[in-house]
């Protein structure tokens, strides 16, 4: 199958893949997109201008251009979200694979910790962690990662357990393969596809969790352009200046839709069984 056929065959994936790339590019090339406007400074004379004219999304109470802040907000949001995904993916997979393969005391300890975390509403703990560690986007990332890794560890462990006792693994052990070799060449490749699909479908919800933390004031710190924080700042002017909360909210919504659709279509391609029903 040629490359072109692949993209034509999975049209949803192609469309939303392109849109995701577009959002990522907008974030990376934010200065070009916004024409070099500084997202953190504005002139007070231009405060709370309605959308239109020079400021297509209007300006906020400090006279900052909302369009610029929304575009730069993509940087903050995407960086933080990808950081969470990478952290939980790596830590969860590592712990899960090791626990599953070796079993015994390591497994017992890690899985008891994971169970404790899973038996508990995640956002509640994330809230406490992010708040106690001190307000910053980095701590919000840590908090969300702390409550999300058990899911991945559990999943990776169950995938490893499924194949650990297969004949081909036994054959590898008998023929003298090193343990590290077995883990890297047999265990990991078997667990990865499912884990990647899970991570891809989780991007959207992690983005929402991070935005909620910022919205509550436990994430990004002003004047950082961040969508959740912008919504929080716009909340007080809801009646007179509704565009303060319309555009950042719409930005979160659109981004989450794009990444959710991308994740779902990726799952359909890599794991057709789960989407049959």
């Amino acid at each position: 199958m040629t490359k072109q056929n692949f993209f034509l065959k999975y049209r949803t994936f192609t469309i939303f893949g392109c849109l995701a790339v577009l959002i990522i590019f907008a974030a990376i090339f934010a200065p070009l997109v916004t024409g070099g406007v500084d997202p953190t400074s504005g002139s007070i004379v231009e405060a709370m201008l309605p959308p239109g004219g020079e400021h297509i999304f209007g300006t906020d109470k400090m006279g900052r251009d909302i369009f610029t802040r929304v575009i730069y907000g993509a940087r903050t949001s995407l960086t933080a979200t990808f950081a969470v995904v990478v952290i939980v993916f790596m830590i969860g997979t590592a712990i899960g694979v090791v626990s599953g393969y070796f079993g015994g005391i390591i497994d017992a300890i890690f899985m008891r910790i994971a169970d404790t975390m899973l038996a508990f509403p995640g956002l509640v703990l994330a809230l406490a962690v992010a708040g106690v560690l001190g307000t910053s986007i980095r701590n919000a990332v840590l908090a969300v990662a702390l409550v999300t890794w058990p899911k991945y560890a559990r999943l990776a462990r169950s995938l490893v357990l499924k194949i650990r006792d297969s004949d081909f693994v036994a054959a590898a052990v008998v023929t003298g393969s090193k343990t590290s070799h077995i883990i890297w060449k047999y265990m990991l490749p078997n667990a990865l596809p499912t884990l990647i699909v899970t991570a891809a479908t989780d991007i959207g919800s992690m983005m929402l969790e991070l935005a909620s933390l910022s919205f509550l004031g436990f994430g990004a710190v002003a004047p950082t352009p961040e969508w959740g924080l912008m919504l929080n700042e716009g909340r007080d002017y809801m009646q007179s200046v509704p565009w303060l909360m319309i555009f950042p909210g719409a930005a979160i919504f659109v981004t989450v839709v794009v990444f959710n659709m991308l994740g779902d279509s990726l799952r359909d391609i890599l794991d057709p069984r789960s989407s049959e029903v």
Partner: protein
Amino acid sequence: MTPKRILYRIIQIITVLFGISFMTFLLMYIAPGNPAQSILLASGIMPTEEKVQNLMDLLGLNAPFMTQYIGWLENVLHGNLGVSYSLNKPVADLLLVRLWPTLRLTLFSMVLMVMISVPLGMLSAVYKDSWIDNLIRGYTFLGVSVPNFWVGLLIMLVFSVNLGILPVICSGGDFISMIGPSMTLAFAMSAKYTRQVRTVVLEELNQDYVVGARARGIKEWRILWCNVFPNSLLPLITMFGISVGSLLGGTAVVEVIFSYPGLGNLAVSAITSNDYNLIQGYVLWTALIYMMINLLVDISYNFIDPRMRLKR
């Protein structure tokens, strides 16, 4: 659920509570924030090094970690959750006042959620791949992708600010003040739950007994409500219990938006002011509520599914 199994679950709940309290306590121990400093600042005293140290001694914050934890634990077992630093009242009392509003909000949102999800999910499953199904799936997709605090703000903008039907500040805690917050919560939750209802009902519709019933000429609606629905109930109730978790997390955000006088709102202000005892209390209580609801869900299997009663 045999009595033995219920006992096992209660022991499990206690273990999880221990684990959670230990983890949060450890976290606060290593956290950079200093409650003593916050207290001094809140009462308008310049927090000099000496004053901070004196207050920390007084609060027992200079003791080694395990001493602090065991001391706290001993108090908790006596029903004493300590005193809130920022509000200067017993934590247990503060939480108790806020418990009922949050519980009521959660229950009401759950009722709304079920009322929306079950009919929509079943419609979607019965008319699979039709325009109705596509419409409902579109709705569920919208629901899982939209941030709930944005929905809350939009509901407020439309119903409270523009139409003036609902109050802007829902601090009364009465029924009318519950409508906005619970609509917000139910919207997001019902989207997830509708999907699950659809999946479960679809699976059940593919069973052989449905084909058999159809072949015998039993009316479609009868099969649906008298056979398929009761059979789908078990997985649906399990998922219902699990979704309470995200509901409890969501209440914090929604309560802040609507200034609703619940636990979540209290917790957010506690976190902002480094009120460790209050945060601990909040985390423990939320964990307890969540696990108790799930225990009740498990016990309810006995009444719903006769097979469970026989399995002894």
